[in-house]
């Protein structure tokens, strides 16, 4: 029998008992549908994270902190006068970087430039003697690009203080429309080291869309950040003003991941910890991958159950077609071809079920994305459930493989069948 005839016969045979095949296809559909959706969820969220990293455009910057010298112990940690609070879990501390440390980092091979991060606490923002609102100033990362509603990014080299304001502040501050807000001046207040509240002015150059990057904070340019930091540290002893929680290090990315790792190793040797944005987000990605893996596990269990359905369906088919198989063997059909006929029939069932399941999942994903777009408006650009061709193909091919395995037992039985006993009567 020719290959095409084996294929077309197996395909026709798969639908000879329509109800039975439909039910088995349904079982596979459910498994493939679930697997595609959970996969799609992982793909969607991880894609969003990747896109975020990409849009930041700062893959040539890593955050450097001073590695804690002592090994973590169970007992209480010894007091270190150089420790300052680090962002992260409450109570977590990091050893502060001093100006000496900054110089050391600058001298490390591969470091192009180093900028200590000067964190500032703004008390309020105000426009035209109006209501005062709390405002956080987002971590400034050189090269960062923010999604804007109107206006422009802050100009790094500008000599005047500038900032990008979150869209949510435009109306409360009475700035008119987002477009009107651009070019207006706002007042920012900080408390200096002596406890006195001082203010400074800055020009709004852009209005930012809500997004993960700014976390609802304003983004200052270098001049404004320096000014706020100077105001805040006025009157503080010098030891205080030259202590930084972290520093941003620019490096050359042309060397690829291995060069980046080498730089991280050199930093570690000098007693610092360097982490790229990808490293930081990688943790989140790993957690999401873990959750998706567990969800996939459930879907795979459903598929295994569906596979047992295929075994059952095919055993019934072999039973029903005992005589037909016997006749074909009497007419010279080889056992190998009989095996192919039944195992391909199983694969066809798997293919139909998984193809429908994947299509259904893409449809359902579209619906979910529509709904989640409204619910998760704060995360613009997030496609909750996304499908990549490789993932979809993997599901379909995987199900076909399961179907083939499920088909082997019945197909073997058919292949081993003795033509005479099938053809005997009386």
């Amino acid at each position: 029998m020719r290959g095409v005839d084996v294929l077309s016969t197996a395909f026709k045979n798969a639908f000879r008992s329509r109800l039975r095949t439909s039910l088995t296809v349904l079982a596979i559909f459910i498994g493939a549908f679930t697997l595609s959706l959970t996969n799609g969820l992982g793909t969607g969220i991880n894609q969003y994270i990747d896109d975020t990293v990409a849009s930041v455009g700062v893959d040539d910057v890593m955050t450097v902190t001073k590695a804690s010298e002592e090994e973590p112990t169970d007992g209480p940690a010894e007091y270190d006068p150089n420790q300052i609070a680090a962002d992260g879990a409450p109570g977590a501390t990091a050893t502060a970087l001093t100006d000496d440390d900054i110089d050391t980092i600058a001298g490390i091979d591969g470091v192009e430039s180093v900028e200590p991060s000067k964190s500032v606490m703004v008390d309020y923002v105000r426009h035209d003697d109006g209501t005062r609102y709390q405002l956080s100033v987002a971590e400034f990362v050189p090269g960062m690009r923010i999604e804007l509603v109107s206006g422009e990014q802050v100009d790094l080299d500008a000599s005047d203080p500038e900032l990008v304001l979150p869209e949510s502040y435009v109306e409360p501050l009475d700035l008119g429309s987002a477009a009107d807000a651009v070019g207006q001046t706002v007042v920012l207040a900080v408390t200096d080291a002596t406890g006195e509240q001082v203010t400074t002015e800055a020009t709004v150059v852009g209005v930012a869309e809500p997004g993960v990057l700014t976390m609802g904070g304003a983004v200052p340019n270098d001049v404004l950040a320096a000014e706020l930091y100077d105001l805040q540290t006025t009157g503080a002893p010098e030891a205080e003003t030259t202590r930084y929680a972290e520093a941003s290090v620019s490096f050359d990315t042309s060397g690829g991941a291995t060069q980046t790792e080498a730089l991280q190793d050199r930093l570690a040797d000098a007693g610092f910890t360097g982490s790229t944005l990808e490293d930081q987000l990688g943790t989140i990605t790993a957690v999401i991958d873990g959750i998706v893996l567990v969800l996939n596990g459930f879907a795979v269990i459903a598929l295994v159950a569906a596979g047992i359905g295929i075994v059952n369906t095919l055993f019934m088919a072999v039973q029903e077609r005992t005589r037909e198989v016997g006749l074909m063997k009497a007419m010279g059909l080889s056992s190998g071809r009989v095996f192919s006929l039944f195992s391909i029939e199983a694969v066809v069932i798997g293919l139909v079920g998984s193809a429908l399941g994947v299509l259904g999942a893409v449809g359902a994903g579209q619906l979910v994305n529509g709904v989640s777009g409204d619910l998760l408006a704060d995360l613009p650009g997030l496609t909750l459930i996304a499908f990549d061709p490789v993932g979809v193909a993997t599901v379909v091919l995987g199900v076909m493989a399961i179907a083939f395995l499920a088909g082997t037992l019945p197909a073997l039985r058919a292949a081993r069948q003795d033509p005479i006993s099938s053809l005997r009567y009386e």
Partner: protein
Amino acid sequence: MSPRVGHVITSGNTREAADVVSPLLSVSNLHKTYGSGPSAFEALKGLDLDIAEGESIAIIGKSGSGKSTLMHLLALLDRPTSGSIMLDGTDTSRLSAKQLNQTRNSAFGFVFQQFFLNAQASVLDNVTLPLKIAGVGRRERTAQGIAALAQLEIDDKAGNRANDLSGGQKQRVVIARALINQPRVIFADEPTGNLDTATGAVVEDILFDLNRRRGINLVVVTHDEELASRCDRRIYIRDGLIAAREAVAA
């Protein structure tokens, strides 16, 4: 493989004089035991039989006498426990499974008491099944299928489902299926057992017509004396042995 087997496989309407000398099928001291140990049953107990080219032969006997067993062995559907079956002078016990399949596919046609038609498939698909197994392309299959159906005057039913035919029509389809590969031997196990007398007679006519005009050997298993009497030779089987041989005094 000997060139003789090659000849078997390519089937043949070409019969050379040399072939007529050795019988088409030659069976000696054939034994067939089913099962083993205390439940073993010896269905054939040492049979000798020659079937010449173009001969029609009837195997007659009571139910359980071993007729079907003998036919299955002759048709290479089963292997004997001992004894030899020579086909065109070749010992068939030396043929591989693949060669046996090819021989059955190209040189034999089968007609059983039951039709063994695929009820859901079309008449044409049923008839062309041996060609499909042989690896003949669809177009060629259809052409030959229609021709075979035309020979049996049921080509107008080619597109019908096999299930929708009467018993007589079904047996014609079965004969068309047995003919389509231009076989040298048609094995028929109780071919009229399921048909009424009139229809049975028509089917008999078709079979003997094929034997006479195209020289196709007929091996007919039956307990119908009337059918047996139309064959060139009758073999009576009792308890796994040949009880009597009888040639027609034509």
